[in-house]
């Protein structure tokens, strides 16, 4: 709770949405009855957003008998972390009783290189597209931008063939390639919009002083790229970690990422449904992105506002 309040205070101080002073809020005046109504609605919605996930947390700490026989909103009478241990290391995923641990590692091994490579390439692309402009660069950027929004169903069949040809079918390396390629459009978009606001005169001056392409990038551009790099990393991390379609299509079996393994755990048709284990597994799958969101969420929202659609 304390971290949440802290986060809230930070968010208010720096603001993903600018709220430095109360004057930023609307000047509209509201009466007492209206204000009570507003608070009531806001609290009801807070409950709506908290309830499903909160129930999942509560029930992941109950023995199975309390779940199937009892009230989902009741606190556990018998607190237990057995479901968590089971979800992590012994639950049946597909045919193997391995728990989610190996798949969690698969996801880490996939997400770290994919995020690093796509962010690096996005930074270079954004730098070229804003500071080394050439004829037709807007069209090229438009092509990259549209690539962000294609329904991935249109590339599934050819991609499966391509990964087969490259010998990467069913591997983590194959998934890294897929995520880098389809993340490039977004990372390029972020860095391009960010660098567009950076004074080109500084780059010109450095050029006149004889600095080359990479020197300017390392010495002038990269040092100011912190905020947008954070945005790109968070965006890519969340998307790649949460991806299901590519994972399910290209990495079956032991190389599957966390989301696919979780789906296998929850929707396997054999045996007794251990709901408490399912919930513990779902929370484990959600944990990395939730942590990233709590730690750095304010940059994320700010970046989405500034970078993605509004330009």
């Amino acid at each position: 709770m304390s971290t949440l309040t802290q986060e809230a205070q930070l968010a208010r101080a720096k603001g993903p949405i600018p709220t430095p002073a109360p004057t930023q809020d609307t000047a509209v005046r509201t009466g007492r009855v209206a204000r009570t109504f507003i608070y009531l609605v806001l609290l009801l919605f807070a409950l709506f957003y908290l309830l499903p996930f909160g129930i999942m947390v509560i029930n992941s700490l109950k023995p199975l008998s309390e779940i199937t026989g009892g009230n989902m909103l009741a606190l556990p009478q018998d607190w237990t972390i057995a479901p968590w241990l089971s979800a992590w290391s012994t639950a049946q995923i597909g045919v193997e009783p391995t728990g989610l641990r190996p798949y969690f590692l698969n996801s880490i091994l996939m997400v770290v290189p994919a995020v690093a490579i796509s962010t690096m390439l996005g930074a270079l692309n954004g730098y070229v597209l804003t500071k080394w402009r050439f004829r037709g660069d807007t069209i090229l950027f438009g092509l990259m931008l549209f690539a962000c929004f294609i329904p991935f169903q249109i590339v599934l069949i050819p991609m499966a063939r391509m990964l087969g040809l490259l010998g990467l079918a069913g591997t983590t390396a194959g998934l890294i390639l897929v995520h880098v390629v389809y993340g490039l459009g977004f990372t390029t978009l972020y860095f391009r919009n960010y660098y567009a606001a950076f004074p080109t005169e500084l780059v010109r001056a450095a050029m006149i002083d004889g600095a080359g392409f990479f020197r300017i990038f390392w010495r002038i551009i990269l040092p100011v790229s912190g905020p947008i790099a954070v945005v790109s990393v968070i965006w890519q991390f969340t998307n790649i970690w949460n991806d299901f379609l590519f994972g399910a299509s290209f990495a079956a079996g032991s190389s599957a990422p966390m989301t696919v393994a979780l789906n296998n755990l929850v929707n396997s048709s054999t045996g007794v449904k251990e709901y408490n284990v399912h919930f513990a597994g779902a929370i484990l799958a959600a944990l990395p992105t939730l942590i990233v969101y709590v730690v750095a969420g304010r940059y994320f929202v700010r970046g989405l506002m500034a970078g993605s659609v509004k330009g």
Partner: protein
Amino acid sequence: MATSTEADFRTRLQDWLPKLVLSPSLAAILVFVYGFIAYSIYLSFTGSKMLPSTDLVGWDNYRTLWGLSAWQTALINLAIFASLYIVICTAIGLLLAIFLDQRIRGEGVLRPIYLYPMALSFIVTGTAWKWFLDPGLGLENTMRLWGWESFTFGWIKDRDLAIYTVVIAAVWQTSGFVMAMFLAGLRGIDNELLKAAQIDGASNWNLYRRIVIPLLRPAFLSAFVILSHLAIKSYDLVIALTGGGPGRATELPATFMYSYTFTRNQMGVGAASAVIMLMTIAAIMVPYLYAELKERPQ
């Protein structure tokens, strides 16, 4: 002489270097996006079954596709899902943003609560809601345990109503994000404008209807584009929440494409359905992106 050619070479290298750096990404996009789109379009005109084949069959796959009741169900479901999802997310997002903008105490606590679902995977969201909506375990059971014996909420098991549970879960996941977009828009409105209107005697209702909401047009447009694009791509949530069922009642184009291509070995038909999905998204995205890129010539 030697130095001048060397200098010449260096200048040329500097000229080419930016394009050289851009080229791997560009090549990747051209092959993996546009090349693959072309290949999928080509496949949709072939008689491919389990494996891609080269015999062209004209529009046969499209004819088959439109004749399939599963595809029609998927399209009707998409129409229901997308329209409700977009309208409800926009309405909730706008309402919460306007309310949060009234100098609310605890805004900093409420905002992350509204937003956190978007950090979750649709598989996690589906797992949570599937259980919450299960008549025997979730809400219905709880209400009955609390003494409301006649309470029924079995939409997820009902062929006609199951698609609405997908809407509920999807709205839960995304509406907070839409709220953030509207809040950013509201905070960008000049307060002097509102004060002037108040002095002129405008009621709060009229103030929002006549001045504020029209000023939020860009936020409405962004929300529409993002939500419609998410709706057409929706796949994971259906898989996790209903698995496309009961029966095929919650099949969407995305799940249809996957099952026809990879489990029913009708690759040509699957490719045709993917092409139609792409065309639908392109019809929305291309004008939007064109306007965005044209607006700011640099």
